[in-house]
């Protein structure tokens, strides 16, 4: 890393004649690429300080305007529950913030409390409860509030599910699937205490003042109906009520809205010289994911070309051995291939916008605290 003090040496005359605002090629390469050699990658660490090249009269800082001009997003794949897009012109620190927020701080609903009425199955109560917690629910968390310690469970912060299954004596073993969890839009059906003398309505574990059907147009079931929860032998039964609340992945992974969210830097494969005939064939064979292809030059000559750099896994097979000098492998430092796999509560594109909003909220919070 260059010392910051070099800033003041701007304009000394032993510098080679520099074009304004352009670094010499080798420095530009170091600045914008991670270079992958056969041994180990080099220049992995970016230059954080915007004045790092100020001595050469080059301003590499990223002002907001510059950022807004250069930032690009290209969606490559978008399905109901996963997406891949390119995020171009952004620093790793910000891309990483989005990734971290996606995994740990975008809220979802998950089962948090389980009221066990009966469980004679072989699976222990706590294990069963844990399994229930991990089931992805098809409920939009934006419709709900967080439940804090002193809150009473109501229709705005709790979703109630019931599970009542039993396996008759003499029948074969039964598999309990997540689809058998039944959503109770009117709230809990379990009474808190033994029936009172008077004919009053019993107090249950939730106090819903309206049906959840009025809050959510869609039914708040489970996302996947075929997840095995338990297996019951003849004569065994499970009866329980499960309460789902809103939470974030930081507290428990069951609230994480993504199966994974990850990014990688765009691989760049450059042929440093013309590779022909046999060497070309060899090179094409070396790559396990077929990044290279052969181009026919006519008159019996063949040449290797890079056709699919995007699928390069940077296994570095092509730079091993004698071909080391032929191929240059780099990664583009500010080009991220971002992938989001949603667990189902929200579609991936919504998850990403939510994540960005959360980062904004964080900034806002700190600004107001500083004021």
């Amino acid at each position, binding site marked *: 890393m260059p010392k*910051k003090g070099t800033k003041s040496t701007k304009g000394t005359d032993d510098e080679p004649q520099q074009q304004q605002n352009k670094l010499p090629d080798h420095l530009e390469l170091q600045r914008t690429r991670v270079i992958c050699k056969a041994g180990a990658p080099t220049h992995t660490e970016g230059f*954080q*300080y*915007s*004045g790092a090249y100020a001595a050469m009269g080059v301003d590499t*800082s*990223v*002002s*907001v305007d510059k*950022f*807004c001009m250069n*930032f*690009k*997003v*290209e*969606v*490559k*794949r*978008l399905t109901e529950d996963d997406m*891949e*897009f390119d995020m171009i012109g*952004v*620093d790793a*620190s*910000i891309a*990483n*913030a*989005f990734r*971290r*927020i996606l995994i740990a*701080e975008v809220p979802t609903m998950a089962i948090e409390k389980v009221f066990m009425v009966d469980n004679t199955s072989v699976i222990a109560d706590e294990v069963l409860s844990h399994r229930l917690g991990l089931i992805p629910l098809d409920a939009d968390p934006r419709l709900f509030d967080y439940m804090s310690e002193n809150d009473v469970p109501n229709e705005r912060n709790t979703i109630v599910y019931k599970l009542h299954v039993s396996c008759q004596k003499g029948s074969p073993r039964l598999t309990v699937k997540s689809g058998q969890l039944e959503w109770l839009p009117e709230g809990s059906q379990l009474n808190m205490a033994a029936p009172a003398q008077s004919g009053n309505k019993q107090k249950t574990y939730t106090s819903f003042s309206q049906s959840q059907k009025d809050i959510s147009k869609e039914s708040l079931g489970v996302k996947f109906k075929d997840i095995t929860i338990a297996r019951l032998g003849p004569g065994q039964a499970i009866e329980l009520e499960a309460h789902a609340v809103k939470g974030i992945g930081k507290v428990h992974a069951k609230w994480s809205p993504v199966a994974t969210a990850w990014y990688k830097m765009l691989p760049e494969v450059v042929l440093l010289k013309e590779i022909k005939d046999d060497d070309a064939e060899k090179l094409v064979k070396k790559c396990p994911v077929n990044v290279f292809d052969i181009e026919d030059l006519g008159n019996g000559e063949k040449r290797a070309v890079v056709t699919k750099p*995007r*699928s390069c896994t940077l296994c570095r097979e092509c730079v091993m051995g004698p071909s080391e000098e032929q191929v240059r492998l780099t990664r583009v430092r500010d080009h991220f291939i971002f992938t989001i796999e949603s667990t189902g509560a929200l579609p991936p*594109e919504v998850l*990403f*916008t939510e994540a*960005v*909003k959360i*980062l*904004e909220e*964080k*900034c*806002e919070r*700190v*600004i107001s*605290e*500083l*004021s």
Partner: protein
Amino acid sequence: MEHGSVTDSTASSFSIMEEDHTLANSVRFVLNQDPRVAFCGYSIPHPADNKVNIRVQTTGDSAKDVLKDSLQDLMVMCQHVRGTFDTAVSDFRQNKTAEGMDIDLNKKK
């Protein structure tokens, strides 16, 4: 929240509760782009503590104002990211319906 010397407002450490690398690293990036910043860095004193310390030293302006400006910049960047992302998604959807089929050029593997 703010520990700095009383006499010198150009250098301060800010201790932010309930935050981690997510915010601190992004803010450090934005701070580093600001020509008024002479030095900045952050640390999490202990992984069990839910807080992060951000150090800002400036060339003359108040460190607090510079940090605030950086946070403001980060917010503007986020808004831009959100806008760009939304347009990209709707463009993608439109193209897809125009093509009428699911061509996945960049599918890996």
